[in-house]
Structure formats: structure tokens, C-alpha cells
């Protein structure tokens, strides 16, 4: 992993946020936020409630338009001009805080919709399940430990299984950048460990940004940490660095 030592060698910038401001009725959810994520990096973002973590993801994925600032992907794609669909098709995947799988579709069908494939309305009308696609779905089912549950409606899965299915959907889509919003929320310790292992595994061939509350989980990822507070970056560096940062201690412990 490329995180433990503080200044990593400058790679290609994948995600670039500069001076991003978002306000809702006068409340600044993001205040002049600047953040740079490099290609191949694993980054964790922590911060107290209301620090702007989810809003930051909303801005990157096109759900929220910033009032000011620039957001670029791969240096040239201006994300502030694109909608959710276009941004997803650029190769940015997102996992929500609350697991949102399609409850009325089977586990296999959920994965089928996430397959890296044409998204056109006509194409989907005439799409067929080829052996190649079936194989990729089967492989993903194995990897997320749901091989036994392929035919079950996603709605009957346990909470942890839904989280895994959602991660499986990101996996099978094969994106360049993954944004994971609290991926271990509501998981047992064992499931959390397994998820950490999976994320580290995934991070070998793509860029991942994880937003998390669980400090044990953040530590186990051993990645570069960005601390957000009141909509801007408070500190950035290794886990040890930010944990010993006086301002971070003050904000987190409320002193």
C-alpha cells in the first residue's frame, strides 16, 4: 500500500477538488474544500457528523452542484458539468451509507445490472445473458460469499449480506474510482475484518476513497487519512499523524 509514509511520490492526479463550496440555506456544508486523490491511491476520509463527508461524495458523483470551486476527474473531465449517469459512465462508482440493493430483483439480477456493459435503453431492451457475463457474475458471487444465494431476492438478505452485494456490484462494474460511504456500518466485527481485507484487495488495481467513522477499521486499512471538519480539510497524513494532531483531538473530543 502506498500510504504509510507521509509524502508519497507525485503520481497522476485522478480526482481534483479545488475551493469547493456548497451551502444549504446559508449553512456551508463544504467550505473552500480542496482535495487531491492520486491514481491508485487508497484514501480514508474521517470527520465528525456534519463535516461534509457525504456532501463531498455528492459533489463528486453529480448529485449536488457546488456553488463555487472546480472538480476534475483525470485532469480533464469537469464533473460539475455532468449528471449522475454521465459521471458513473466515466468510471466513478459509489456505495451509499445505507445499503441500497434492488430488493425486488434477485442477487444475480442485481449483479447483472451492475455489469460493465452498455447502458443504452435500446441495448438493454435487447441484451442477452451470454456465457461470458454469466461467468463473471458467478465469479463475483464467489468473491463476495453469496454463491449460495444467487437466486434469492436481494430483499431477503441480511444487512451484512446486502452490504457485500453492494460491494459486489461495484466490483463487477470494474470502475477506476470507488467512493465507499461507511462500508462497514452495521457490520459485525468479523464482517468488518473481511470487508477490510476485500477493500485492500480491491485497492490493488483501482483508486478507492473510503468515508468512515470506525477508527479501528480506518487503522486496519493503514491508508492516508484526510480529516474533514466544518466543510474543509483539518489535517491530512498517516493514521498516527492525524491521531496525534492537536486540532483533530480537540475537534473529535469536543474540547
Amino acid at each position: 500500500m502506498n500510504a504509510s509514509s507521509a509524502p508519497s511520490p507525485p503520481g497522476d492526479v485522478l480526482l481534483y477538488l479545488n475551493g469547493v463550496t456548497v451551502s444549504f440555506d446559508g449553512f456551508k456544508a463544504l467550505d473552500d474544500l480542496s482535495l487531491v486523490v492520486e491514481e491508485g491511491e487508497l484514501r480514508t476520509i474521517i470527520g465528525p457528523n456534519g463535516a461534509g463527508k457525504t456532501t463531498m461524495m455528492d459533489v463528486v458523483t453529480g448529485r449536488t452542484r457546488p456553488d463555487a470551486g472546480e472538480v476534475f476527474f483525470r485532469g480533464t473531465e469537469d464533473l460539475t458539468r455532468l449528471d449522475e449517469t454521465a459521471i458513473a459512465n466515466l468510471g466513478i462508482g459509489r456505495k451509499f451509507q445505507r445499503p441500497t440493493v434492488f430488493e425486488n430483483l434477485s442477487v444475480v439480477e442485481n449483479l447483472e445490472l451492475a455489469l460493465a456493459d452498455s447502458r443504452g435503453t435500446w441495448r438493454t431492451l435487447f441484451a442477452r445473458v451470454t456465457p461470458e457475463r454469466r461467468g463473471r457474475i458467478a465469479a463475483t458471487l464467489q468473491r463476495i460469499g453469496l454463491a449460495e444465494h444467487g437466486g434469492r431476492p436481494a430483499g431477503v438478505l441480511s444487512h451484512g449480506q446486502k452490504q457485500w452485494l453492494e460491494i459486489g456490484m461495484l466490483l463487477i462494474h470494474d470502475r477506476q474510482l470507488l467512493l465507499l460511504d461507511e462500508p462497514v456500518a452495521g457490520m459485525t466485527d468479523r464482517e468488518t475484518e473481511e470487508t477490510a481485507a476485500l477493500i485492500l484487495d480491491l485497492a490493488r488495481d483501482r483508486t478507492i476513497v473510503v468515508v468512515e467513522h470506525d477508527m479501528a477499521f480506518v487503522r486496519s486499512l493503514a491508508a492516508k487519512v484526510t480529516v474533514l471538519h466544518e466543510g474543509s480539510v483539518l489535517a491530512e497524513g498517516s493514521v498516527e499523524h492525524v491521531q496525534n494532531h492537536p486540532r483533530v483531538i480537540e475537534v473529535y473530543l469536543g474540547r
Partner: protein
Amino acid sequence: METRSTAGEANAWSIRFWIGFALCGLVLVVLVPLLNRTVAPGSPFAVPDYLVPLLGKYLCYAMLALSLDLVWGYAGILSLGHGAFFALGGYAMGMYLMRQIGTRGVYQNPVLPDFMVFLQYKELPWFWWGFDHFAYAAAMVMLVPGVFALVFGWLAFRSRVTGVYLSIITQAMTYALWLAFFRNDMGFGGNNGLTDYKDILGFDVHQPTTRLGLYLASAVGLGIAYLLCRSITASKLGRVLLALRDAESRVRFLGYSVTNAKAFVFTASAVLAGIAGALYVPQVGIINPSEFSPGNSIEIAIWVSVGGRGTLSGAILGAVLINLAKTWLTGAAPEIWSFFLGGLFVFSTLLFPRGIVGFFEQLRWARLWPGSSNSPPLPIDESVVAKEKA
């Protein structure tokens, strides 16, 4: 375990399905005409001539319900303006039938329909041109509702109008058309609409054989419409629609265009509704602005809801059953019909929220996944329709 796998396509077209489909087809396309043509009137098995257009009318309603179920049951778009697409298709057919009257009208004008002579039109308005050709009229039956729905739907879905708001603007749409078609200067016969048809494709519309032909066309049309809807819902696009019904923004983040998918299915549905309207008009012999009335569109939603939305077959069942009840009750005790309809809707929503077909599917679901309290969540708040009706 592979009961509902990606092989959804294969399941949708199982042998069991085809046997059921063939049996229904046999009854509607072979048995009914046979009982009508060969069994002597008076026999308990006879299908008298007066019943044929009535059955045909039910089949048109069934097709209309099917079109609403496609958008409501699968894509979660509760259109309360589907009666408008039905009426637009009906008017296109009515215009063809008017042009066929020729000199047999009261005023014997070879070009202008009676109401135009009466309203002192000097020449045929441009939008009536071409309707003397059946092929042109048939194209308009599909194009007019289709293009209208595409423009309306694309604008609404692009602006992300959903749920109750969308239902309300579809009501407003049909209400606006209702008012517009009432006007004499619209050129569609105003309040009286289009009627006194003589023949269709050269056959006298009053002849029992022509009526049987129209009934058969409705039955075949319904069958084709059903297969089309089923192939859409069984495709990957069908799964995208179900997915966006339940979690729309999630579908966007997967990279699918929600706007395009919705606009497609809304347009396809409007075309089906238009065809249903076109088959309906020659069988009932009139089309007038009342078809646009907002209450009509709400009634369609009740058929679908009672039959079971998101099932296709439920829509057909609901439309036929409720209209049978309507025919009987509006004859036997017309004053209680609207109370009956309202009561039926309230009680079916309370007792069978998934409708008749949905109720049986739920039983099957419980058997398949024992121990799970989960069943498909209801996508839309039924009380919305109830409030609209009240």
C-alpha cells in the same frame, strides 16, 4: 434455488406460460366466435350478437389497463392521464370513420363531415388531411399518442418529476385536453364528438360479421400487446425499470439513464393505449371529449390496482371484472355504481394491497422463501389514488 435468476427471460417464456396463453387465446379467438356463429340463439351456450361488441369493448379496456400497468407496475410511474392517450388514438380512428361516411351524411357533403357543414366550415382543416386513407389513420393512431407522450414524458422525467407530482400533472394534461376537445373551433366535433359511422375498410360497422371481426381484432391486439409488454418486462430493461421503481437514484449511479428508460416505456405504453382506443371507437360507435375526463383515467388505475399491478395479467383481469360489474350494476342500480367502485377500491387496497393476482403471487412467494417476513415492498402509496378519487 435458481428460481428467479438472470434467466428471467427463460422463465417468462416457459412451457407453462405458453400453455396458459394458448388456452386464453383459444377461448377468445376460437370459442367465442364459434358460439356466436354456430350455436342457435336461445341456447344457453350461445353468444348473442349484442354481446360481441360488449366483449370487444372489455378487451380494449383490458389493453388500456395493460398499458398503464407497464408504466405503473414496473416503472412506478402512476399516470392518471392514460385515458388521454386512449382518446387520442380513438379520435384518430374516429376521423378515418368520419371520412368514410362521404355523401351518406345528413348534408351529403362528399368531403366535410356533417358537423363541419353545420359549423359552416368551407374546407377541410389541414389536420384532417389524409384521414380518408386507413393506413395513414392507423399510423396516426400510434404516432399522435406516442409523440405526445414522448415530449410530455421526456420533459417531465428530465426535470425529475416523480410520484404524486407526476400523477397530478398527468391529470392536468388530460383535463386540459378534455376542455380543448369540448370547443367547437378545435375541429373535432366539440361536445358531440365524432359519430354516425357507416363503414370501416368497406365493411358496414353495424353488421354482426363486421362486429365479430372488430372483436377478433381486439382479441388479437390484446394478445400481441400482452406479449410485447411481457417481452419488455422480461428483458434487462425490464429489470432496470423495476430497479428504478424501487431506488431511482441508485440506478443513476450505476450509469443508466433514468430519463431515457422512463421516456421509452411511457411512450410505448401511450402507443398501446392509442391502439386500444382505436379498436374501441368502431365498436362503441362514438368518440367524444368525455373519454378525456379525469375520472376516466383514475378508473383505469383502479382496474389495475384491483387486478394486481406489476403482474400484467392482473391488469387484464381487473379491467374485465370491474367492467363486467359496471355493465351489470349501471343497469341494475345505477345510483350505487360510484359508491361500489370507491368501496371496492378502498377494501381491495386494505385487504389485498397487491390485487387479485398479486395476492396469489404473494402466497407463492411465502412458500418459496419461508421464514422471511420480506415480500416485495409496495412501491407507491395507494392512498394517493384514493385521495384523487375522493
